[in-house]
């Protein structure tokens, strides 16, 4: 039921280690302990066996202290430790491979991340015709339509505007498909991995639009990508003039190709698809453009057969990331429950956590700074008594919106609506410590 311990973390005794890495691989880490077995007893037994055979444990001096390490500039662009090799994006467990990876997605490994920032190489992906390779010197942004002055910008010109940096989450509206019976094998990467959060640097779109002069009759803005899908979405002008960014950097470096290099739209709080990547064109119009992505896709079919359209905002949602699916609690005692909460309407106001399936709730501590339309890390100390437990979190945002239960969502709509699932996520802790998805 629990995910296998990844190869890189599996600890096999026997042959003598030949390299620093192999030696270290035999060491037990706290995380590998927690993930190592299908229960506390198993994990405990494993850890004891390893402790006995490890040659780098005290009182021995670790092997890696007995010779110099890798030289400076061994990796001009640094990489994570090889022992973190399984902390990567991947496809959703249990889903058949898509017909083509040109139009597919990959999931952020939320279970293994700390804080609120998603490393650039782990930001989730969703492309509709692959990731283009764009030469920034030949990239242009055209602003036209219902404007006084149609303008064209080079990347050098875009970056000359006054810039701002803001931390915002991006969530695909297809994130979390818990409409049906829960698959106990899913981890939080599977259930919530179409979610990431970065510091985005760019130009407030309002400044660029002011340069072109938006006409009074302009109510919508078409944003178009320079990818092979020429992705297009219609955005309300109010949003474009409010907090929209033309982003060219994430977490301090230029955008990754998968996130829209060299320029993307960033619409805080909106469904990810609307933040068009590889942005090449903005066209102002009086009406929405009714593109394929806002009619046949990214609309929610309701039980009455009518589809809800332009439902942009990702409403408040939260999820516990520790302990969560695939984890194993080694033994009864103290654990810190930790998770993420966010709202497309503003700041997280409070997060409550239950360990008894909703019979009682306790308020979690929120890690500062709590920012608008941004992931917020929450924590709650917990003493596990070794028995079965059902964990869940519930967020309330600053507008008073409360995250609904799955049952409440199902009352309003069902799997046919597909998008914007933000129900409360439950994780089941078995008596042995195994944690599984409970939907």
């Amino acid at each position, binding site marked *: 039921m629990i995910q296998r311990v990844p190869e890189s973390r599996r600890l096999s005794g026997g042959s003598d280690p030949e390299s620093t890495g192999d030696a270290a691989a035999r060491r037990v880490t706290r995380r590998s302990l927690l993930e190592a077995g299908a229960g506390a007893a198993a994990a405990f037994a494993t850890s004891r066996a390893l402790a006995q055979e490890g040659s780098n444990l005290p009182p021995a001096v670790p092997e890696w202290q007995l010779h110099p390490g890798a030289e400076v500039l061994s990796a001009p662009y640094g990489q994570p430790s090889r022992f973190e090799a399984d902390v990567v994006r991947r496809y959703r467990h249990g889903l058949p491979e898509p*017909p*083509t990876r*040109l*139009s597919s997605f990959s999931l952020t490994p939320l279970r293994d991340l700390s804080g609120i920032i998603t490393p650039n190489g782990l930001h989730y992906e969703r492309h*509709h*015709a692959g990731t283009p390779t764009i030469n920034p010197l030949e990239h242009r942004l*055209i602003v*036209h339509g219902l404007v006084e002055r*149609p*303008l*064209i*910008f080079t990347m050098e*010109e875009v970056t*000359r*505007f006054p810039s701002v940096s803001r931390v915002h989450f991006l969530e695909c509206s297809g994130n979390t498909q818990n409409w049906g019976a829960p698959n106990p094998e899913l981890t939080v990467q599977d259930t919530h991995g179409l979610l990431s959060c970065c510091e985005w640097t760019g130009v407030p779109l309002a*400044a660029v639009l*002011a*340069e072109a002069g938006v006409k009074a009759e302009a109510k919508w803005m*078409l944003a*178009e990508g320079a990818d*092979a*899908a*020429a992705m*297009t979405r219609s955005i*309300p002008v109010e*949003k474009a003039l409010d907090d929209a960014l033309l982003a060219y950097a994430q977490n301090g470096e230029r955008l990754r190709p998968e996130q829209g290099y060299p320029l993307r739209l960033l619409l805080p709080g909106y469904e990810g698809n609307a933040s068009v990547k590889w942005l*090449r*064109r903005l*066209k102002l*119009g009086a*009406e*929405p*453009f*009714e*593109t*394929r992505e806002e*009619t*046949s896709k990214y609309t929610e*079919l309701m*039980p*009455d*057969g*009518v*589809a*809800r*359209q*332009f*439902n*942009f*905002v990702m*409403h408040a949602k939260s999820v516990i990331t520790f302990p969560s699916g695939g984890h194993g609690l080694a033994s009864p005692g103290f654990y810190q429950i930790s998770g993420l909460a966010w709202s497309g*309407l503003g700041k997280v106001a409070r997060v409550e956590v239950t360990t008894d399936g909703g019979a009682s709730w306790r308020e979690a501590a929120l890690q500062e700074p709590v920012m608008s339309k941004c992931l917020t890390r929450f924590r709650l100390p917990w003493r596990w008594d070794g028995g079965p437990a059902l964990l869940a979190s519930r967020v309330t945002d600053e*507008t008073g919106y409360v995250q*609904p239960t799955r049952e*409440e*969502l199902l009352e*309003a709509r069902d799997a*046919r609506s597909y998008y914007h699932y*933000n*129900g409360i996520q439950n994780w089941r802790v078995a008596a042995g410590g195994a944690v599984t998805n409970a939907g």
Partner: protein
Amino acid sequence: MRDRVGRRRLMLAVAAALAAGAVRAGEPYGIGRPATPEEIAGWDIDASPTGAGLPPGRGEVREGESIFAAKCAACHGAHGDGKPMDRLAGGIGTLRDKKPEKTVGSFWPYATTLFDYVRRAMPLNAPQSLTPGEVYAVSAYVLFLNGIVPEDAVLDADALAKVRMPNREGFVSAAPPPEAEAKP
């Protein structure tokens, strides 16, 4: 005394800043240059429900059938019945079923969206390779497969914009975002 010195320093600083090229709020930055009509025309490929943006050209169902067989059927099935990619035809009247069939015919509210999407993104391996006439023809064929236009239909900008899709009234807008009445 100290206040007065501070104030004087501030005034001097402001004067110096203005002299050094301070930017007044609301003043244009003067960044970028006018986009030429030719530059815009090369990228301005969207088509709206009103028909705005549809290019000159025309295409008929029969021509669309052969283009579809050559360039679309491998992904969408010989008659648009899908697999491995999206089903394009059929499913009309299934949107209230437990398993709705969302196709161009059953779900898409505007025929112009079909043209727009094929023109910009299809076929997957060679987007923007079809001529406007070929896009009209393929659109005509997909609409014919759905029983929306007859077999002898010829589509151009005018005719395409007049096509009324079965699910034209099947959408309700949630925009602009209703902060006050957030729904699950």
